[in-house]
């Protein structure tokens, strides 16, 4: 939280300073009014001058005008600052989230990031806005009020002041208790968001299985815990207000008693006690405002910490210096000049990186309470020794313009190879080179530029087809329709545009699976990438379309190195190299014909799909 104040709020300090000053003047005006009133009662009335009474009355009204003008101006400035601060904070947070590594995404989890980005920043915004409105006014009223009471009568003021340490103590204790409760509450709220999100995604299954009741119960449970946590926090905070009122009012009683002695001794006047009671109301109200601010701040500190957790996350994928040496080393080993993708002895496990961070997470097993917290996301993986590597000792070389096919059973590590190839994760050992350079020596932008990719569960956004293909990259109309054409999508895209606006629904719900895949492929083709990666991305296409697609790509993208992960032998049988994976091990590497001779698993797959005639 401290860091957020330093980084996001402190630049606005000059602005806030001006606002504070204006507010200060306005508030002083507010404070003048009872002072004048006391003067009227103590000095003007006994003198019996009506003219003076009117004059001072006018002065009070004048002060009121000044107060309202200044306060409005200051509030306006405060709103501006709040809106600017959060705009920047949201921008930075979103930017950070966009650049988080996959690993970090897995740890924070998406629902938690979403609620950090939405409700936590909202809490902070409320806090910044109100703390300026009340948080400036209230202390000024408090300090100003106390100051004026001192000028009125120091002895009475001291009595009142004696209450303050108690108040401070109370405030600190209560907010100390409050912050952890709020933090917990937000973690549970994450869980609620997750349930809603999941249920929306799975609405068809839920309805199909008539699990509405079950989901309702599930939501009821999380709803109840959110509400209970909120209640807990509320109860703690509720102590503050009445205790403050009691303390202050008892202070007032003390003041009157003291006043009685002072007046009796001739050290003070009745008018002063009178003014004192007025200031006292101001002080009391100021204190109550401060209480509200504290409960708000406690909540925002929890939010601020959650936001900061994301913001401070370190860049995980460091770029290696000294790329040239690596290049040299590659060549010495006698690799061919035009090697585009080189894997040498690559080993990797998803759980390895996590386990080192997870540490003590025994409590997170089972139902996964609080699994929205990043520490907890890695929960329950302490048996890491038993987890086999996802990939072990994988080596291959693909030359520019060649095609690599990857085939293997479910969970054999096909997609993992692609993840490593694009450096979405770093290999545990071994080396990956793209175009002769260690993959870790590339600037992220440079590396990404080389690839066009369709992931297995790729995302269609709520946008037009053109928007989904271009993803905001500047592309001419010709380039777009070319990409769609080679992706075998132009047929249905043109059909659509004639009949309806071509906006796509959320998650592409108004496209069939095959249509989605073709839009995604067009997206990958658009930038004419050096390396095109298709992760099982033609599975929903019928054979004919699939064949035409591959043919089109080979004809029009002759220089593009192609990496295809597929279930169908027909999708990869023409590849220059085929990698057969089993449990993370390479059990066959070569062209279709070679594998048909040497690799029994490959044979088996091929026979099962194409019958004997396919050989």
């Amino acid at each position, binding site marked *: 939280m401290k860091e957020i104040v330093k980084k996001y709020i402190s630049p606005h300090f000059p602005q806030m300073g001006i606002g504070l000053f204006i507010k200060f003047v306005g508030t002083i005006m507010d404070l003048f009014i009872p002072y004048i*009133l006391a003067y009227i009662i103590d000095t003007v009335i006994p003198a019996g001058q009506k003219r003076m009474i009117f004059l001072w009355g006018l002065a009070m009204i004048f002060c009121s005008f000044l107060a309202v003008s200044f306060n409005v101006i200051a509030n306006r400035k405060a709103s501006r600052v709040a809106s600017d601060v959060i705009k920047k904070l*949201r921008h930075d947070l979103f930017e950070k989230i966009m650049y988080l590594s996959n690993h970090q995404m897995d740890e924070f989890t998406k629902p938690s990031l979403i609620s950090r980005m939405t409700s936590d920043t909202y809490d902070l915004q409320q806090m910044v806005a109100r703390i300026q409105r009340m948080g400036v006014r209230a202390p000024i009223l408090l300090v100003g009020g106390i100051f004026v009471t001192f000028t009125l009568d120091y002895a009475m003021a001291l009595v009142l002041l004696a209450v303050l340490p108690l108040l401070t103590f109370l405030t600190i204790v209560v907010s100390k208790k409050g912050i952890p409760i709020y933090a917990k509450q937000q973690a549970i709220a994450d869980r609620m968001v997750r349930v809603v999100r999941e249920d929306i995604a799975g609405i068809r299954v839920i309805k199909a299985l008539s699990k509405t009741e079950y989901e309702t119960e599930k939501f009821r449970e999380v709803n109840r815990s959110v509400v209970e946590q909120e209640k807990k926090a*509320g109860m703690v905070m*509720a102590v503050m207000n009445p205790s403050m009122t009691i303390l202050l009012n008892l202070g007032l009683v003390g003041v009157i008693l003291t006043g009685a002695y002072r007046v009796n001794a001739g050290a003070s006047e009745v008018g002063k006690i009178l003014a004192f009671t007025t200031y006292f109301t101001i002080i009391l109200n100021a204190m109550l405002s401060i209480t509200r601010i504290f409960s708000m701040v406690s909540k925002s500190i929890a939010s601020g910490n959650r936001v900061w957790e994301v913001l401070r996350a370190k860049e995980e994928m460091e770029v290696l210096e000294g790329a040239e040496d690596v290049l040299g080393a590659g060549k010495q080993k006698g690799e061919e000049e035009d090697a585009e993708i080189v894997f040498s002895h690559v080993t990797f496990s998803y759980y390895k990186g996590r386990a080192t961070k997870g540490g003590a997470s025994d409590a997170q097993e089972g139902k996964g309470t609080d699994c929205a917290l990043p520490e907890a996301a890695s929960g329950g993986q302490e048996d890491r020794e038993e987890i086999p590597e996802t990939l072990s000792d994988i080596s291959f070389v693909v030359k520019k313009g060649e095609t690599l096919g990857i085939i293997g059973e479910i969970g054999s590590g096909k997609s993992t190879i692609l993840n490593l190839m694009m450096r979405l994760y770093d290999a545990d050992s071994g080396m990956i080179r793209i175009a002769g350079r260690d993959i870790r020596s590339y600037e992220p932008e440079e590396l990404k530029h080389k690839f066009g990719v369709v992931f297995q569960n790729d995302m269609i956004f709520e946008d037009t087809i053109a928007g989904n293909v271009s993803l905001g990259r500047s592309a001419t109309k010709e380039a777009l329709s070319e990409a769609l054409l080679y992706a075998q999508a132009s047929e249905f895209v043109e059909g659509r545009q004639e009949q309806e606006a071509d906006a796509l629904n959320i998650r592409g719900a108004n496209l069939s699976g095959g249509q989605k895949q073709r839009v995604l492929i067009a997206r990958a083709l658009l930038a004419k990438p050096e390396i095109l990666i298709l992760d099982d991305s033609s599975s929903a296409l019928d054979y004919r379309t699939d064949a035409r697609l591959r043919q089109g790509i080979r004809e029009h993208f002759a220089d593009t190195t192609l990496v295809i992960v597929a279930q169908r032998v027909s999708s990869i049988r023409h590849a220059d190299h085929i990698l057969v994976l089993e449990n993370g091990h390479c059990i066959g590497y070569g062209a279709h014909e070679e594998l048909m001779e040497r690799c029994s698993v490959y044979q088996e797959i091929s026979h099962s799909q194409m019958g004997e005639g396919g050989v």
Partner: protein
Amino acid sequence: MEQTRQAGAKKRYSRRTLIRLGQYLMKEKWLLFVAIVCTFGSNLFALVGPRLTGFAIGAIEGGIGAVIFERVFYYAGWMAVFYVASALMSYGLQVLMITISRRVVYRMRQDLFEKLLTLPVGYFDIHQTGDIISRISYDIDTVNASLSNDLVQLLTTVITVGGALLMMLAISPQLVLVFAFTVPLSMFMTKYITGKTRPLFRARSAKLGELNGFVEEMITGQKTLKAYGREDYTIGRCDEKNEVAAEAFYRAEYYGSIVGPCVNFVNNLSLSLTGVFGALLYLAGSMTIGDISSFVLYSRKFSGPINEAANIVSELQSALAAAERVFSLMDELPERADEPDAVSLKEVAGEVALSHVRFGYLPEKTIIHDLSFTAQPGKLIAIVGHTGAGKTTLINLLMRFYDPQGGEILVDRHPIRSVTRESLRKSYAMVLQDTWLFTGTVYENLSYGKEGATRGEVEKAAKAAYIHSFIMRLPNGYDTVLTDEGANISKGQKQLLTIARAMLLDAPMLILDEATSNVDTRTEIRIQKAMRNLMQDKTCFVIAHRLSTIRNADLILVVNEGEVVEQGTHRALMDKGGVYRKLYDAQFE
């Protein structure tokens, strides 16, 4: 004219929102009643304070040596008693209000969520998840904050203002005339500003919802955006929405924050006037200093809460805007209710017949033109055709996620419109192209369709679906919690998990929509036996591209542009040499 009518409609809308909020509150009417009693008590006790102060000061008034200490102590003692009592009541009140507001929020959220589940599936295709989440969390939170704080405040205001007014009348009726001028002024100003700010608060909620919707979608697609290096572009788009939301916040907040100082101004005005006229009255001999003191204290009491209330008017407004969004989601049309005389399907044999079915998601764009076929009980019906020929749509119709615009679908000769949705859907087991797993253990995910399935049953299904060994390799086996849409589980593994889920169901009919599209063929062969068992004696609808999967189908429907162009067995269709033959041969090209 048009504008006034619109304004009128908006006003009615606000009133309806208030009434509905009121209905939620009324469910807690007993607690609410106690809360009101507490509010009265706490405020009335607090109101006695200034009067006692006045008396105490009156006892001091004598000046040097003439202070009547006995009376000072007497009144001071009572002051302490009343203040403590008032504070205790106010604590009780807060506890009550927190309880009430949490209950209301709980109920509202629950209602909203239950409503969500009754909406037709199409609703979620055109509404951003983030916006829905924004309603269920942020909007309800806003309503809730307002209920727990502002309501008490408002109540306090009413009571304090009323009480203070009475007290002031008792002290000096003439001086109260000052308020005859300032109170209407204050009311007028508040009303004027609120009228201006209400649309601003509406805009604030809506814009925030839009931003949240956008953020949700983009974070979901983060991996893709990153792979294409579109981070900066997306951040740019987010900035636009952020800018709009921040601006909407600023405008609402700024105009809302005017209310406070304005009301304060009026209060200062009344204080000034009270001072002047009080002084005059004193000179005229109809008021004592102690009276003026009490009166001024009461006038502060009078204006203090009004001031607070003015501050919370802006909060109330944002709460109202939020409540409108909540209720508008609650007012969405649910799936059409089952016919009143709908029967529940029992012991389904599994005969499914379509006769002249016509359907389009948009009425003017028909996808299925005229589809008729009959599936005999226990038979395997395969549906093939080019991508996008309307195969998945057919499933939407069978499950009655949508109703056809023409024609009829019958199950066991019952038109499905006259059957309860639940019994219809329960008679199908379904494995879809888009696999869905939720956060929960593997066991929970698998037994989802069959509550109380034993561990043994679940393991048997998992073994049959050839996913058991994968599960055992997970850190905690069947107790491993799958998180975040199954981050490191491949689509093929997800498909196997959903197949295992379907295997546990004992439904008379089965729908497999590309159920194994991401499963490698070797695994597919291994699970084939289990699949055959699964399909045994069930009417099965299978959509697949891999034609090897469907060679054994009893009936193959070749669908093209929403119509069945060929139907028959594999052999018959191969002999015919039409569309099917071409499709089949294509895989060997």
